[in-house]
Each structure stands twice: as structure tokens, then as C-alpha cells.
């Protein structure tokens, strides 16, 4: 009888519900994770630090220059030095080094590692380690793999530095420095802004669904629910885009965007840019 349950005691969940995280819980956890990461990134971008204090245009141009240096260098030592340079900048910018390195090295084996694995065996060259007769890891293969892994990790680290030390809005403004059309920058900004709104909407939708689900949903029911939710979210986003366009028209938008003239860079921004370009030149010369 329901009356026999104490008011404060939650009803015992069925065994399968206790042990299995369903689609609803996984989706909610993912949405929450994305929002937390976004919040954390914004918090890092506003910390006092070396790179946070620089103009995003200087950082963007420096990043591109250093990426070119990483790509052109034929010396593992030079690329390793550039990686250490990135780590040093992360440290001086008050970024948590452990998180910074984990973010790069945790995912690297999954993407680049899979790519370099065949190269270890297939690249012709002197044998480095012989596994079985006819199958050996070559010295040239190891060298190629090391180059690729180090290049990718250094490039990703540099790009991560830029993203973690700049507010999204500032990065968008920096893009106009590269002569990217204002309308494209406007669309990128709106995309980022409305992803958050749709995430909140998705979160509300799945929470509302969770509050009405008792027990276990079959896989087919979960698939139907996810499909229906995706459809509703798409419809909402279409409605929203129509209304947003009206709001833009209402304030004078006529198909092309105008942005405020950029504020000139300060002396320290030019200094930072000069250091980065100098490091690039030295890296290219040493690694030629």
C-alpha cells in the first residue's frame, strides 16, 4: 500500500534501473558536461595571466606563425622545444598544466595513434625491433611516427592555448583582422550563442522526460524518444532562427553586418607578436 511508505523514503528503484544509465541520464550528463566545460573555459580566459593580457589578434597571428614553424621543422628537437615553449606559456598564463597536457595527450593516441600505427611497420628502412619473422618496426617508421605525434601534440597545444586564454567574443573579433567577412563572423558568433540556448532547451526537455519515466525503457523506446526529441529541437531551432532574423531586421539588419572599428593594439601586444614571430623564424632556421 502506498500509505504504508514513509513520506521521506524514496520508492526503491527496480534493479535494472539502479545499475543501468539510460539514454536520458547519458544525454543529461553530456549536456551538463558541455556547459561545465564552456563555463570553465570562460573562467580560464578571464584569469590574470600572460596570454590573457594580450590582444587576441596578436595571439591569433602568433599561433598561425608557430603552427607554420611546427609544420616546416625537420628536427624533432626543435618541435619538442616548441612544445615546451607552449607549456611555458600555459604555466605563465595560469592554466592548470595537468589539465592542459591531459587534454592533448589523452585524445592524441585515439586519433593520431591509429594513423601512425601502420607507418611503424610499413615504412621501409632499417629494422628497429623485430616482432616475428617478416614483421618488424622500422627505424624510419618510428621516426615518422614520432614526427607526426609531436607535430600534432604541439599544434593542438598551441591551438588549445589560444582557445583557453581568449574569450570567444574576442577571438571572433580577431578573425576580422584576417579579413574574414563580418557576416561570417556574425554567423559564427550567433551559432556559439544559440548552441548554449539549445543546450539548455535540450537539458529541460530531457529533465522533463526523466521526471515522467518510471522504470526501464526498452532500447526501441529510447531510440524513439531520442529521435522525437531531436525532431522537436530542430523545429524549435528553426522557429528561433526565424524570430531572430526578424529581431535583426527590426534593428536595421539589411543582409550585411557592420562591426565596430578595432581598437589599436598596445605596445605589449606588439612585443608579444614580435617574440612569437622571432621564435618562429629561429625554429624554422634551426629545423630546416
Amino acid at each position, binding site marked *: 500500500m502506498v500509505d504504508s511508505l514513509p513520506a521521506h523514503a524514496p520508492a526503491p528503484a527496480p534493479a535494472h534501473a539502479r545499475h543501468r544509465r539510460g539514454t536520458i541520464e547519458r544525454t543529461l550528463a553530456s549536456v551538463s558536461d558541455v556547459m561545465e566545460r564552456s563555463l570553465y573555459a570562460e573562467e580560464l580566459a578571464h584569469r590574470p595571466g600572460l596570454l590573457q593580457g594580450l590582444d587576441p589578434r596578436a595571439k591569433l597571428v602568433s599561433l598561425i606563425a608557430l603552427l607554420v614553424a611546427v609544420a616546416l621543422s625537420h628536427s624533432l628537437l626543435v618541435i619538442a622545444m616548441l612544445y615546451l615553449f607552449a607549456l611555458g606559456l600555459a604555466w605563465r598564463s595560469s592554466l592548470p598544466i595537468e589539465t592542459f597536457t591531459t587534454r592533448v595527450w589523452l585524445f592524441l593516441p585515439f586519433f593520431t595513434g591509429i594513423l601512425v600505427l601502420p607507418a611503424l611497420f610499413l615504412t621501409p628502412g632499417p629494422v628497429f625491433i623485430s616482432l616475428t619473422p617478416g614483421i618488424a618496426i622500422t627505424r624510419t617508421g618510428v621516426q615518422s611516427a614520432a614526427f607526426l605525434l609531436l607535430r600534432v601534440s604541439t599544434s593542438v597545444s598551441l591551438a588549445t592555448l589560444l582557445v583557453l586564454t581568449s574569450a570567444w567574443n574576442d577571438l571572433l573579433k580577431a578573425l576580422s583582422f584576417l579579413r574574414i567577412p563580418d557576416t561570417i563572423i556574425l554567423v559564427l558568433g550567433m551559432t556559439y550563442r544559440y548552441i548554449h540556448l539549445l543546450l539548455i532547451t535540450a537539458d529541460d526537455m530531457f529533465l522533463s522526460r526523466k521526471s515522467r519515466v518510471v522504470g526501464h525503457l526498452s532500447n526501441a523506446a529510447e531510440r524513439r524518444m531520442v529521435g522525437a526529441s531531436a525532431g522537436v529541437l530542430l523545429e524549435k531551432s528553426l522557429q528561433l532562427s526565424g524570430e*531572430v532574423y526578424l*529581431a535583426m531586421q527590426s*534593428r536595421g539588419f539589411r543582409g550585411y553586418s557592420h562591426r565596430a572599428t578595432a581598437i589599436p593594439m598596445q605596445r605589449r601586444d606588439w612585443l608579444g607578436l614580435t617574440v612569437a614571430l622571432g621564435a618562429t623564424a629561429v625554429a624554422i632556421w634551426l629545423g630546416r
Partner: protein
Amino acid sequence: MDETIFDLRQVCYSYPPQFVALEDITLSVLAGERVAVLGSNGCGKSTLLKLLDGLYFATAGAVQAFGQSLTEAAFDDDRFNFAFRRRVGLVFQDSDVQLFSPSVWDEVAFAPLQMDLEIDEVQARVNEALSALRIERLRDRPPHRLSGGEKRRVALATVLALKPEVWLLDEPTAGLDPRSQSWLVDFMAAQGEAGKTVVTATHDLSIVDAIADRVFVIGEDHRLAALGTPQEILSDHALLESCNLIHSHRHRHLESGLLHSHPHKPLLAHEHTHD
């Protein structure tokens, strides 16, 4: 004679394929007037404001603003579009719709930049709007990190930076806490006192007295049900009840035990007595 800002003659509007939103609306708004458009949810208030702002175009009848017809062809002319948008500002019901830029500063600067104003003028207008709405501290914040009340203030600032002659406000107090509501009513009253024309769509009867000199009521049949002063409209309970703006319900008086039904007037609870 007062200048007519908006003049609507037998206006109809239908959403495709055939959902009627407004039917046979005839009304006019004079310069400097404070007008409330009352109606229940879904009666067509928001559609009416979008017609007045030249975002939708009448499917029948004629809409004129400042003596000129509001048609798609008229807005294709950049000069007309430019002049009209400078004079009329619309605050949308859903602030999230209105806040599409990555930061509050960019949002408030959007309209002045579209108006091709000099950058110094843009900055001055943005600072002025942020200061008037007491949201300077939010200038670098992204809109998704704002509370509902803050979003509404930023939405108002985006229009204030335009310095429009005409304000169109769609359910401006909806979803706000009492302090923000009170502040917003004061803000709208100040715009009216400054000589601006203010048209507010709402179903919140408690603010009508404070924000309007004249009231249009739209019925659930999407037609103009009545127009008059706030006192005339708010005292007509039969009209308000028929337009779903107040409701009747039964309640019992504790002392007398009398059980009866009566309509709820604006802000009236059960503080009435019976002989």
C-alpha cells in the same frame, strides 16, 4: 492636430496556410500616445506589433506609418528601411530572440552600427544605454550568462541605443520578479513622459493604468473588441471576461459561509463584503 504615427484600416493577417491571427483591425496611434494592446494568449498581439514594425505585412487591408504604407516593396528601398528602423524600435517578448550577439556590448551596438553611425557616436550611445539601464557591469558578458531580468534590461538597451521615436513592447513584464516589473513600468512611463510613442502589448491588467492613456482590446476572435481609456476598459468586467482577461471562480466567505461566483478584477482578491 496630432501627427498620426500608425494608421491601420481593416487589416487582416493570416499565417500560412490559413491560420487567422488578426481580422479586420482598424485603429490609429498618435504621436506621443501611450497605448496598451490587451488580449489573451494567442489573440494576435505579437502579430500586431510585428505588423507595426514592418516585419510582417498585412494579408488584407492597409497599414500606414508616418503617412507611408508599410509594404514589402517599401522596405526594399534602403532609404525607407533605414529611416523607418531609426524611428521605431521593437522589444520582443522572448529576450533570447533579441540577444543574438556574443556580448552585451556588441548587442547594444548592433543597431547603431547598422545605422552607419560614426564609431564615437556608437560608443556614446552604447555607454548611455548601458548606464540608463544600470547594466554597465554586464558589458562584456555573453547573453547566455545573464538572468531573465538582466536579459530584459539588455533587450531594452538594444532599442534605447537606437533612440527611437516609437517604442513597441511585447509583454515586457512577463516572467519578471516584482521589483524588475516595477522598475520596467517606471522605465516605460519615463519614455512616455519624454514624448515617445509607446505601444505595449500585454495581458497584465495591473500595469495598464500606469503605462497607457488609451487601450485597444483584441478578442479571442482576433478582432478589435473595444477601445477606450484604461478606466473605461478596466471597469468593463463583461468585456474583460469575454476576452479572457479576467476569470470568474467560486469561493466561500469564511464568516458568512456564502458561496458565490464573481469575476476577478485586476489586483482584486477577495477583499469584498456582502450584506
